[in-house]
């Protein structure tokens, strides 16, 4: 198991390296002098700073050397400096990362729990009204634009019903601490996490339902029936457990979409995470910050993939015990 994790981490580092290289070339694709791009266009007036950058990144040197320098900088977590925000990119991102982790994490858990429950329910009632209702709802959420449903949720739950706050991480200036603060944050979290989770819930509903129907047709389910087991036990112990394996795989593959979705959700709800940071960088054409967020969000996906891979091996004895 440790060997497996080490192998996966090694592979992840290679992928991350490839992403960093991709990033390097993207900077060069941006309009204008790379040094100016890194400085941010407004900072262009500061000749001394641009010259410093040019030297730091060896922009007068041949391309391979530049690449090596760039990779070395990122390896020590130096993502450059955001002139617009007057702060190192790494610091900016580190400040915002916890909020994004909280949002994506809770959206993931909510969507997985609801999705699997509803999907299993639909599969058990396949062809009956409950199934039609659940699959219809899933189809609808699957097609709903994330940014729009967030706005609609604000209109309904914040503006009309006034149940939930429409933006922010916590009540500014309320001075909450400890549990009270946690409750306040949770209160703010409900709308963003739910709207972000809706799409993924739809994905898991569809996958769980399809997978359960597939498994229900397999031989070992017939064996279970031949034992005289009741339907409930068969569904839970034999069908659902096997049906969850492809759902776990899918959950891993969805990580990238989840992080991407967070950009929209955070933008709409003014949630102070890296998605919102990306939007701000976009508005200000702060390319250096933009690419920094991009690299970090890719790394997040890699970590998430690693976790689902390990989870899969825990669930499925066939891989672990092989030898």
């Amino acid at each position: 198991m440790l060997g497996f994790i080490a192998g996966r981490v090694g592979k992840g580092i290679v992928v991350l390296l490839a992403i960093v290289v991709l990033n390097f070339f993207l900077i060069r694709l941006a309009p204008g002098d790379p040094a100016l791009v890194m400085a941010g266009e407004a900072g262009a007036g500061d000749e001394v700073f641009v010259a410093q950058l040019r030297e730091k990144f060896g922009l007068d040197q041949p391309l391979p050397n530049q690449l090596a320098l760039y990779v070395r900088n990122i390896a020590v977590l130096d993502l450059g400096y955001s002139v617009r925000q007057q702060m190192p990119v790494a610091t900016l991102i580190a400040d915002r990362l916890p909020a994004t982790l909280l949002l994506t994490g809770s959206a993931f858990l909510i969507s997985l729990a609801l999705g699997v429950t509803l999907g299993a329910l639909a599969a058990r009632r396949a062809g009956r009204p409950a199934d039609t209702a659940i699959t219809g709802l899933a189809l609808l959420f699957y097609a709903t634009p994330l940014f729009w449903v967030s706005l609609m949720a604000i209109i309904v739950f914040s503006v009309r019903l006034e149940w939930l706050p429409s933006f922010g991480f916590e009540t500014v200036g309320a001075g909450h601490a400890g549990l009270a603060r946690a409750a306040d944050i949770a209160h703010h979290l409900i709308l963003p996490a739910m709207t972000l989770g809706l799409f993924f819930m739809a994905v898991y509903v569809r996958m769980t339902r399809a997978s359960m129907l597939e498994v229900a047709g397999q031989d070992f389910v017939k064996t279970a029936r031949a034992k005289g087991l009741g339907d409930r036990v068969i569904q839970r112990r034999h069908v659902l457990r096997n049906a969850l394996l492809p759902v776990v795989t899918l959950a891993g593959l969805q990580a990238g979409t989840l992080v991407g979705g967070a950009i929209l959700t955070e933008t709409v709800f003014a949630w102070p995470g890296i998605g919102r940071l990306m939007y701000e960088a976009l508005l200000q054409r702060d390319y250096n910050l933009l690419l920094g967020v991009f690299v970090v969000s890719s790394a997040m996906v890699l970590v998430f993939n690693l976790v689902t891979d390990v989870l899969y091996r825990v669930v499925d004895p066939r891989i672990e015990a092989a030898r």
Partner: protein
Amino acid sequence: MDARAPRQTVVSVRDLRLALPAGGDRAHAVDGVSFDLVAGEILCLVGESGSGKSMCAHALMGLLPKAVTPSGGEIRLDGADLLAQDEAGWRDTRGRRVAMVFQEPMTALNPLMRIGDQMAEMFEAHGLLTPRERRARAVALAGEVGLPEPERIVRSYPHQLSGGQRQRAMIAMALALEPAVLVADEPTTALDVTTQAQILDLIRGLQRRRNMAVLFITHDFGVVADIADRVLVLRHGRVVEEGPAEAVLGRPREDYTRTLLAAVPSMDPPRREPRTGAKAVEVAGLCKTYSTGGGLWRKPRRVEAARDVAFAIHQGETVGLVGESGSGKSSVARLVMRLIEPDRGAVLLGDDDLTRLSGEALRRARSRIQMVFQDPFASLNPRRRVGQIIADGPVAHGVPRAEAEARARELLGLVGLDPSAMDRFPHEFSGGQRQRVGIARALALEPKILVADEAVSALDVSVQAQVLALLEDLKQRLGLSMLFITHDLRVAAQICDRIAVMRRGEIVELKPAGALFASPEHPYTRSLLDAVPGRTRAAA
């Protein structure tokens, strides 16, 4: 059977009718079938595919597919009609009174549950024993069905067991609640011949010890001869003939039964003159090792599919390659065809070494050696017409399309199909007919050598006999040489001049067919021959 005990009927099936959904090619899967299951007796239900034998088995368990419904008759067990009971009644019957063993041990066990837990479920389903006692019983049962190290086996997952062990585990499960009736649906079909012999022994022994009634479904008359007390022959859902095993096998009353029995190849190879002509193909020192699952930190698993395999086929000769699954016989066929690359070795066609050619030269040399595949359903492209399938080869070698199609029409006649088949798609044909198309395709390039990889294994016994006769006839007429790969020693005995026995990538014995069956030298060959079902009774 104990002659002193009176025959005690456990289950009596009367006039059973199972309706198929409307719009099929027949209205009933099973139509008016009656039989009794007697304690201490094995009743074999034999028939070809589509005879309804498996449906009878599932009806006894109340596990029919949703589309099939009982529409008449009754199944009496302890005086009550099983077909009249509700789902709760069925749940109580299943496992406790009637238990079942399925065909595919690989898929019949839940891959995520330990063997012991799956056995314990049997007691749990009927609310018997405490969890602790269930575990102890599981271990005892595993021991009773001859699983090695029962303590360890019950903690294993299915993928850690071999096919035979899994089938033993299935049998242990079925026996757990000491049911009066055991239903076994082709329980040995998916197993190798030596494993099959062991499982048959096991079922026979347990059935005697526990005085169970057994309904045994099979398509294999060899198995019937080994295990049956009584036999019932089914065809198209109706009973053809029923009686004691000796009577049905020895003095069949019906033509259909006689045809089926006659189609079973005999274990006595016909006398054949040894072929001494030029070598059509010579295989030398062929090696192939597969390694899978290797990683940065793990050692890859190595499987030797071929180890120094060498043989020659003379002109007009048929050499058989027999062995159990995993023996490497199919790999050798594909190595000879160069569908997979050998690690070492040579395949000599005259002066050309097929393993050294590449590109255009390889493409041209291929026409001299052609292949007939195993699966009549997977070996034809579903989207191309039969005529195109046959003509594609010659066209690729530069024959004009019109000429190639004219030739394809002739070939269809040669393999016994109507020329109108040209414009039809593969799915419109039966398995046997498709196999004929496959043979026509192989012949289209006018090869010198035919490689047949389990070419008759997927066919019913009567169709198998026809296709074998066709191959034999074509070989004579066209002067072909043949490499015939099969797991079935009976088939090999009938068609091969010489036979090579393979085990773990190695040829352990290579002899003329007559000599191999009369005086096998290698212990493995002997164990293979001993395991062939129906050997004892057929010889008697």
